């Protein structure tokens, strides 16, 4: 499905509101069209209209005017059963009003008055009659009966305006509401998709760019629903109306005007040809800008300390300038097309029109109906107004479509639905069975990993950086899945357990502890309603963080800023430690978790861990071998393979790699 179609599809979620808005739009347009007609009616009927035949009445009565001692009433105001009295006629000429006795025939022309004589043409015959010029007071009197009728019309007109205004408000408001609803829906959809995408996706695309898609790209679509759709609709309706009028007027000419339609189609194709790729680049550059701002702000202290502001600025300027250049390129396309080019088209149509009629004039004389000609010019002019409207929407449509494509691309990425519900707590019996894994599909990071961790056991993974320790954890959590081999939890292959279910009873402390904006307490509980305040406090106490945060003004309710920037690395690690404990997992993973913690605090944690390890399977990734001495199983990894396994004592006795490492670390062997 194309992006445009999918955009409309999104609109359908709110079709009722949108249709209601369109209905209101039509009503207000109709009311708007009626307005001038009423004004015209007012002038024609009640101002110009008094220049007509008046008849004498029996005496004073409504709508009657006293003139030279007798009462007269406009012919149109007589009821059918009323008897018409002696007639007089008001004639408008020389920009004033004259009166003459009797009636004048219909369809006369070229009236003019000289002295007291009115001359006019009746057919081909010139007629003269004596007239009497009305004084200003008399004229005023003749208008009197019209005033109440005009007031009625005027209030009707004003009522119509108010009605139109109300519907205009309703239409605009409803469209904006639907547009905002659609954006909200899109945003929650895209955000929901974020939860479905594999972690791999986030390892390959900068966060700033993803943010740009969820917020800026959706924002670029807003106008599509607010003005673009409404404009396209109303212009199309107007165009259809004008074409109908043209066909009624002159079929041949109307057919020629139909030529406009294929031209418009070609226009759209050509515009897309020029604008699509530019629009695409603009959206990409915008997300690049977002990404760069994000990265710069994250690294600002490094940039400052290395005095790299100017270089960074230069790089940003390059990006900013490229963005500008592309914007200007799009501007050129838009300025060269749009209403400007419609103007050319209209001009050419009129030139053709002149040429065509001149040809007929010179070579087929006597065939031209001038009334039709004038009307035709008028309609042709009107026809181009909605065309301009339509063409002006093209750039907006393209922008929305390109932004939508980027959003739908993200929505179409293969993801996995989040599984709701509770998964029964498992024992924490973990088996790796000949697991192979590669991040990029080429280089195996793990090769034939097999081991078993029984419930309540502690398994330590050691090895140099890059030996694959963290990858084992990534697989355990199903952040990634292995290329081959199986991981079993309580005997069940982990790929058969939904990711969310699997993780429900796992806890992790990462080497980069990530904190969210909030408070210390909210970072421990992650605002999970199942974690009570007491649990939070207990968890913090158990990791020995209570004494640290007691010093803070608000204690554990001390605000945590973005990325926990006001806390030290050690404090952040303690918080993420407490977080893992608060969630009471069956499997606990400590990924180089105690690196930034001083020995004293670490020993507090170690004591707490000894208690908490009961009933949990614990995985420890450590580079300080001293911390894993008591592990039930130590796995030594090297280049993605387990090269040694056993307890501390067994491995020492083995005198292999582990032995060397311990000796290296304790310095009993010089390198």
């Amino acid at each position, binding site marked *: 499905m194309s992006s445009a179609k999918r955009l409309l599809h999104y609109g359908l979620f709110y079709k009722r509101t949108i249709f209601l808005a369109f209905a209101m739009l039509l009503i207000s347009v109709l009311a708007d069209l009626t307005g001038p007609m009423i004004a015209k009616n007012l002038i024609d009927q009640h101002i110009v209209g008094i220049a007509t035949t008046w008849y004498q009445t029996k005496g004073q009565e409504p709508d009657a005017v006293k003139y030279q001692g007798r009462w007269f009433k406009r012919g149109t105001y007589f009821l059918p059963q009323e008897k018409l009295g002696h007639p007089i006629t008001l004639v408008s000429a020389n920009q004033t009003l004259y009166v003459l006795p009797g009636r004048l025939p219909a369809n006369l022309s070229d009236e003019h008055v000289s002295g007291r004589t009115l001359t006019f043409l009746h057919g081909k015959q010139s007629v003269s009659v004596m007239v009497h010029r009305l004084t200003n007071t008399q004229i005023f009197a003749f208008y009197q009966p019209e005033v109440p009728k005009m007031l009625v019309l005027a209030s009707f007109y004003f009522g119509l305006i108010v009605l139109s205004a109300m519907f205009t408000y309703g239409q605009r408001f409803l469209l904006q509401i639907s547009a905002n609803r659609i954006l909200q829906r899109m945003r929650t959809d895209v955000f929901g998709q974020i939860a479905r995408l594999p972690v791999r996706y986030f390892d390959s695309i900068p966060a700033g760019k993803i943010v740009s898609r969820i917020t800026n790209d959706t924002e670029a679509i807003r106008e599509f629903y607010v003005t673009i759709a409404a404009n396209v609709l109303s212009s199309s309706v107007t165009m259809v109306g004008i074409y109908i009028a043209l066909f009624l007027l002159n079929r041949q000419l109307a057919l020629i005007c139909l030529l406009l339609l294929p031209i418009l189609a070609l226009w759209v194709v050509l515009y897309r040809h020029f604008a699509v790729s530019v629009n695409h680049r603009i959206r990409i550059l915008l997300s690049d800008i977002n990404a760069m701002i994000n990265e710069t702000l994250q690294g600002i202290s490094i940039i400052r300390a290395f005095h790299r502001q100017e270089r960074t*600025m230069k790089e940003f300027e390059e990006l900013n300038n490229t963005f500008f250049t592309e914007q200007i390129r799009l*501007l050129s396309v838009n300025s060269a097309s749009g209403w400007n080019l419609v103007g050319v088209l209209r001009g050419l149509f009129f030139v053709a029109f002149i040429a065509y009629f001149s040809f007929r004039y010179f070579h087929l004389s006597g065939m031209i109906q001038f009334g039709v000609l004038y009307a035709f010019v008028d309609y042709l002019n009107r026809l181009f107004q909605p065309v301009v409207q339509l063409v002006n929407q093209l750039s907006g449509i393209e922008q929305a479509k390109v932004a939508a494509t980027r959003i739908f691309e993200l929505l179409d990425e293969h993801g996995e639905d989040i599984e709701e519900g509770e998964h029964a707590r498992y024992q924490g019996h973990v088996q790796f069975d000949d697991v192979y894994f590669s991040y990029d599909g080429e280089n195996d990071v793990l090769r034939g990993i097999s081991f078993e961790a029984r419930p309540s056991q502690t398994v330590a993974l050691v090895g140099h950086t890059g030996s694959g320790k963290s990858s084992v954890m990534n697989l355990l959590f199903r952040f990634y899945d292995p290329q081959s081999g199986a991981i079993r939890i309580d005997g069940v292959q982990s790929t058969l357990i939904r990711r969310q279910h699997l993780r429900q009873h796992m806890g992790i402390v990462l080497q980069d502890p990530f904190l969210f904006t909030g408070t210390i307490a909210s970072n421990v509980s992650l605002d999970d309603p199942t974690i009570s305040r007491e649990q939070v406090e207990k968890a913090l106490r158990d990791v020995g963080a209570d004494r640290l945060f007691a010093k803070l003004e608000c204690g554990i309710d001390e605000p945590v800023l973005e990325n926990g920037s006001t806390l030290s690395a050690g404090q952040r690690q303690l918080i993420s430690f407490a977080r893992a404990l608060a969630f009471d997992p069956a499997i606990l993973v400590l990924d180089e978790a105690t690196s930034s913690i001083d020995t004293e605090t670490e020993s507090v944690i170690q004591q707490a861990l000894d208690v908490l390890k009961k009933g949990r399977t614990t995985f420890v990734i450590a580079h300080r071998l001293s911390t894993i001495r008591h592990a039930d199983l130590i796995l030594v990894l090297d280049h993605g393979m387990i090269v040694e396994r056993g307890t501390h004592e067994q491995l020492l006795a083995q005198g292999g790699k582990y032995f060397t490492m311990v000796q290296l670390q304790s310095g009993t062997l010089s390198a």
Partner: protein
Amino acid sequence: MFTVLKKLSWFFRQYKGRYAIALTLLVLLNFVEVAPPALIGHVIDQMNRGTLTYASMLQVIFIYLVLIVISYLFGFIWQYQLFGGANILQRTLRSRLMHHLLRMTPTFYEKNRTGDLMARATNDLVAVSETAGFGILTLIDSTTYSATILVTMAVLVNWKLTLLSLLPMPIISFVMTKYGKKVHERFILAQNAFGVMNNKVLESIAGIRVLRAYVQERAQEQRFAETAHDVYQKNVDVAKIDSLFEPTIKVLVGLMYLIGIGYGAYLVFQSQITLGGLTAFNVYLGMLIWPMLAIGELINTMQRGNASLDRVTETLSYKQDVEEPVHPVALETPEVIMFDKLTFRYPLSAKDNLHDISLTIRRGDTLGIAGRVGSGKTTLIKQILREYEPPSTGKLTINGVPIEELAFSTLHGWLGYVAQESLLFSRTIEQNVRFGVADASEDDVLHALSMASFTKDLAMLDNGLLTLVGERGISLSGGQKQRIALARALLVDPEILVLDDAMSAVDARTETHIIEAIRSSRKGRTTLIATHRLSAIKHSNWIVVLDDGRIVEEGTHENLLLLRGWYYDQYVRQLAQDGPTDDGPFEMQTTVKELRT
């Protein structure tokens, strides 16, 4: 109402040529466009009267074609110039914003969130630039157009009638000002909500692993839904006012119409104007509707731009927390760094974070800083980065010159800094290491990496130095990242090397190698090391132990051991865990023995 234009007047002055061209052509074009209908009318009239000649027809067609070309060119040029101006404004403000952000220090970043700043640099700037393009167009077009019509009405029909029908104008301007103020208020709230949303998304993505590990996807979605709803609500609040502009103007223009026709009719009744005059007046009034509606649109655009500009200006006018001295003192080399009874408090903190610190570090010295988590090690070490305003009491001097009297370039030119969290940029390893010295040779880069014990790791990477790291590259382990960050600082070969718990994720042996390399290469230069692993600082000339922001123990390694205080306890504990690192088994035994006695 047009405060935004006033606020942007510097810009319009700077690009007055561009705007002069654009607006002149725009106005000229309005006149040129009157010609074609007249030409057609002329031809039809001539046909009607039978006076059309071949030559005059060709002439009309020729003139028409010329007009088409002129209109097209004029139209193109003014659009290109005017909207180009909007793009320039966007570019200028964006680069100012970035420039400004680059000189901000942590205090600013504690008060502002990244996602919101991103929103200001993208979403808000679009709204601001609208005023310089579409806004100006509407302003000029609608005002010149309506002025022309009004003058025509007053001159050709009746000035009294014209004036009277303008009676609702004050109401229009009053109501529009009211609406404008409301739009401004609400649009700011809407844009703020957008910034919050931006931030929420950013944080959710940055913390994706934690959220997934703790199965917080649903809860997070729930919270995002609230944020998205807030954005919706704030925008609906804007829409409520936004949608009022057009209908209100419709009603008021309707009122003008009524007054015009009503009073016009009265004047006709009084024979003061002619019927034809009234009809013409009616047509002109009709022509006024479009520019009036455009004015509503104009105010709307201007106020949105104004609101966004306020947000951008708020950021731009944030005064640097740490200002560069106007007349910096020039210093060649930092001979003595001296903390003199320094007491420091973070701007947002309620209590002092460092108390009464006095320290002297001579060129060539190594200072070790120890202490438990949260004791103030980082705070102490960051003093030399000058990220905050000078402390309230006491001072930090270099060669006797207070640090705040030094130019940033002087101070930062001396520094090599490795932070607690090793922040690498999404580039190649080589570019990351080269960060401080763009023109370093590859040999230098390799040397720095080897000092940081990264050579072996490098060999394992397929693309070697060209391996991409960070978001778009491979994920390195914590230890690898720290060592690259270290190499980055070492390549600068700085006068003062600042290591803030920089090797926490590196194993002890590797750390020892690195410390060795640093010690041998940095003879005669100053090094500050904050760490939890005391083996890394035992060779320092001076070691301070911090607790709660105070120096509680200080001295050389040997002095501190004799003190039998915190340092001693920690050292023994670590010794029992890791053993001494580089002094060989022999010394270890003696040390332990010595300690046990």
